[in-house]
């Protein structure tokens, strides 16, 4: 049954997976291309590489989101009638969905690895710096897995749950706007962002060091 679920889920995920794979390949190559301008010193080179961290993070989050949505979209449309009629325990069914989706994250991960290995093979790295393709790939895999788990949980829940989460995000945006209108100088979003993304924040796996090339 796992094979069947994987096959059918692949049909829904293969398009986004292809796109994510290509982007995953592109980011390391692009980062090297941006950083290899000869005028840069070694530390500037590393800083340029770090600036692509947002790209890796967004790709990991985006890949997790799309795969998670694809895992449950079809069942949501059919109101889970077919899924619930299958002769398998519900938790086992959900676990197989989760496993199948997790497999598809290997595609963008492989893209990142391929791009990183190409960068390592190019040799256009200043002396004194080293390439870390495997560490970057593992980090990306872990981050995309975390994103996938979060969105899998949200997607598996009811629309009401998703609405609640969106409502919470909207409430923060509204609060920030209200504070600004009341001339209160407090950057709520920055504080929340720091709380969430700084270690050991819930999303801190997306922030921090993403340098493919470092000292």
């Amino acid at each position, binding site marked *: 049954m796992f094979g069947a679920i994987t096959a059918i889920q692949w049909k829904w995920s293969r398009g986004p997976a*292809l796109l994510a*794979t290509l982007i995953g390949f592109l980011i390391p190559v692009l980062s090297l291309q941006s950083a*290899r301008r*000869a005028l840069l010193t070694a530390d500037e080179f590393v800083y340029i590489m770090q600036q692509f961290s947002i790209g890796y993070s967004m790709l990991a989050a985006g890949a997790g989101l799309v795969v998670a949505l694809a895992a449950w979209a079809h069942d949501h449309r059919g109101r889970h*009638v077919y899924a619930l009629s299958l002769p398998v325990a519900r938790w086992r069914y959900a676990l197989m969905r989760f496993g199948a989706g997790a497999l598809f994250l290997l595609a963008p991960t492989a893209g990142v690895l391929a791009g990183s290995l190409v960068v390592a093979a190019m040799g256009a790295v200043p002396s004194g710096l080293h390439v870390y393709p495997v560490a970057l790939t593992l980090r990306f895999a872990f981050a995309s897995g975390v994103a996938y788990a979060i969105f899998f949980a949200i997607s598996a829940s009811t629309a009401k749950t998703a609405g609640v989460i969106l409502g919470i995000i909207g409430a923060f945006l509204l609060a920030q706007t209200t504070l600004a209108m009341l001339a209160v100088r407090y950057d709520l979003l920055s504080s929340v*962002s720091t709380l969430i993304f700084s270690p050991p924040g819930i999303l801190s796996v*997306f922030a*921090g*060091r993403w*340098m493919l090339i470092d000292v």
Partner: protein
Amino acid sequence: MALTFPRWLSAAVIGCALLLVAVWRGGVSTERPPLPRRDDLARRAGSAHNQITAAVDRLRVLELRDSLAARHGGTATSNGTVYVDRHFSSELRTLFDAVVQREPQTLSPAGVPMDVAFVLDSGRAAPSAAGAAVAQAVTLSGRASPGRVARAYLLPALGSDDRCLALVRVDQRGNGGMYGGRYDLVRAPSLAGPCAYYQAFGRPGPAIDRWLRERGWMLGQRTAWRRALAARADAAYWPAYRSPFYFFDGWAARQDLTPAGIRCHAGDIAACERALFDPAKSGPATWGDGIITFDPRRTTELGMVERQLRSEMVRTLGPDRFAQFWHSTESPAAAFKTAAGVSMGEWTHDLLVRTYGEQHLGPGIETASMGMGALVLAIGLGVGLAAARRRTIG
């Protein structure tokens, strides 16, 4: 046409190849764009002028050294004798008084006394009697800026009874304000520089002395070994808003340290040892048979911490163990290991960690973040399973 898995794979590979070609071909040249011809010529002339100015400045130091070789008079202090050029203004003489009186008393029974000479100097060697060519060359050099204060240290020669001499050259021209070099003179913790080590610990062992003259004297302008090196927290360097996608722990160190220093900071002890013992790319620490002049433009292997290393050694090891290292007849590496119990590389790594916090290399996740990520992953899976279990039709 269905996108079967083989087709998907082909599309991925071909797509990646096309992207690689597109990005690499559309990239920038790694060649530095050539300067306009005149700018290039002017740059070379400017560089040559800087070199001759620096060399003439060194010649000036040698002239002063020779003229001070038969110095007499002066005022005795507990550290040595102080000489002041009689042409200084009363304001500056008062300043020099304050500087000398603030100097810590470090002369030990086995120590080498330090003389201090405040010389009125505009920074340019007088046309020498050695020859018209030299005189003409000297006239081509630049003049020092008004208010400049330049320090040089003349170490005791090997096997002699020399004293250590701190030569302070002051350009009296200018508005007489307390800023710039004069303010530095007042604010600096100590005037003694390398002479403080001769005063406190006497002459170093022969291998230690060789290492100091080649490399070691670069490892510390600071002599206030009773004051701990201030920790450099990331917060002092980060702007008010810090993007978590750009700033990470260890950022402050990366601002201060060279790549070799960062590797040392991250735990590569071999990198620390190379930075400490290998000859510096910018040349030896001393010149002209034991003269030290500190050039702030000189690149350092370990960054700015390099300027505090030796005084931290004294402070953390204690004067007795440092003296054991100082007088040792072994190599510097062995002598330090004997005195401190750890290698100099390990000690330097520990110093960097104490100053800047932890440092890591390459992409990585903090342990706390990894734990939280694993927890989130487990919670996400758990919530998904629980939602599926509770689901009903309707």
